[in-house]
């Protein structure tokens, strides 16, 4: 079977012409990135699915307006970010973190303690990140989940690299302080 890999430009163009297969191919190509940003931003798989759904529906409905002036991926990230910001902060739930923790307990592996510790740590970081103001949180997610540069993040959010650096710096300080607080509380309990 000969698989012809479509370039991003070809895929986008095909989507603009309404080809259903192209929509599916574009989805397959970007679903993990979109979902990852949504999950790390919201801290909740159910909300992340809602955000991802909204993002792709929005993408498919407005792809005709994509002019190619910026890269497609940046444009897509802008859609995800907007969908993240549209989610109500009050809708965030911490239960999935507990689910994850219990899931690790149920994992039938020998080093279950490691899994639990790792899961707990992941839950702590997720919880601290989820408590950041949206504009700091999204910068953290784009930086550490997607590995984007300051310039790329600045392009997506429409602000200067200085602003991005400043938000990251503030977010780092808050995260470090809160994780230290959590770790300290854990040690006191122990």
């Amino acid at each position, binding site marked *: 079977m000969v698989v012809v890999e479509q370039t991003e430009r070809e895929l986008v163009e095909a989507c*603009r*012409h*309404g080809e259903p297969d192209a929509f*599916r191919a574009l*989805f397959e190509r970007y*679903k*993990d*990135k*979109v*979902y*990852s940003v949504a*999950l*790390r931003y919201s801290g909740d*798989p*159910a909300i992340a*699915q*809602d955000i*991802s*759904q909204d993002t*792709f*529906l929005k993408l*498919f*409905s*407005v792809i*005709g*307006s994509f002019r190619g002036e910026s890269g497609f991926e940046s444009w897509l990230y802008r859609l995800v970010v907007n969908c993240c910001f549209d989610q109500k902060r009050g809708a965030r739930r911490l*239960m999935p973190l507990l689910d994850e923790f219990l899931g690790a307990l149920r994992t039938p592996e020998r080093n279950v303690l490691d899994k639990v510790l790792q899961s707990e*740590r*992941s839950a702590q*970081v*997720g919880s601290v*990140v989820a408590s950041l103001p949206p504009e700091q949180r999204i910068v*953290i*997610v784009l*930086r*550490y*989940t*997607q*590995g984007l540069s300051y310039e790329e993040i600045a392009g997506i959010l429409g602000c200067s690299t200085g602003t991005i650096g400043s938000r990251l710096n503030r977010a*780092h300080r808050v*995260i*470090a*302080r*809160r*994780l*230290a607080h959590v*770790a*300290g509380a854990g040690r006191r309990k122990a």
Partner: protein
Amino acid sequence: MNDGSAHPDHVLERELSRQLAPVAAPEDLWTRIHEPRRPATRGIPIAWIALPATVVVLVAFAGLYRNAYWKANRAHEPLAELPPASRDFDFRSSDFGAIRKWVKAESNIDIDLPDGSATSASPVLLLGVRLIRFRGSPAAAIEYHVGEGAATLVVSGKQAGLSGNTEVGKHLFSAMKSAGKDHQQLLSWNMRNQNYTIAYSGAKDLGGACLLCHANTRSLITAN
């Protein structure tokens, strides 16, 4: 990392990269997108949702009924408001790009038609554009011929049109509102915060008027 405040930034960055690493999307995400449907919120008894939902549905139905009644009674009104075919253009051109540029400069209305729209399609002959007021808002009325039929595309602000549809793409056409009066037919839809209305006097096929924008996508046109 046991104590975040004691670690240099690069340790924190490494930790964040590890804990916030990308994840795979769930398998059923495409299904959700393909058949958009929100799952019921977990952890909330269905009865908590059912009663308010019933009230909302009843109110929505009442609103829709009222809206449909209103539209049904107003469906033909814009025909009278649309400008009659005229040769008195504010700007005469057969080049869509030139028309778009002129309209943008004169009225700040951006006529955002799809790429490949049609101006080069043989059955479409652009005549020119006039700036008018349509249902109380500034609007650009582009006149063109499609074969034997004459058509006017009116692009105006959000408040000016018939329908509230905001879909873009092929769904647009199935959701379009159409109304016929004598040999005139009307399409109206909202797109990107502007209202688009086409009045078409061709005897056969309303879809012909759509060739202005969709010369290559005629199969999508279902309204007739």
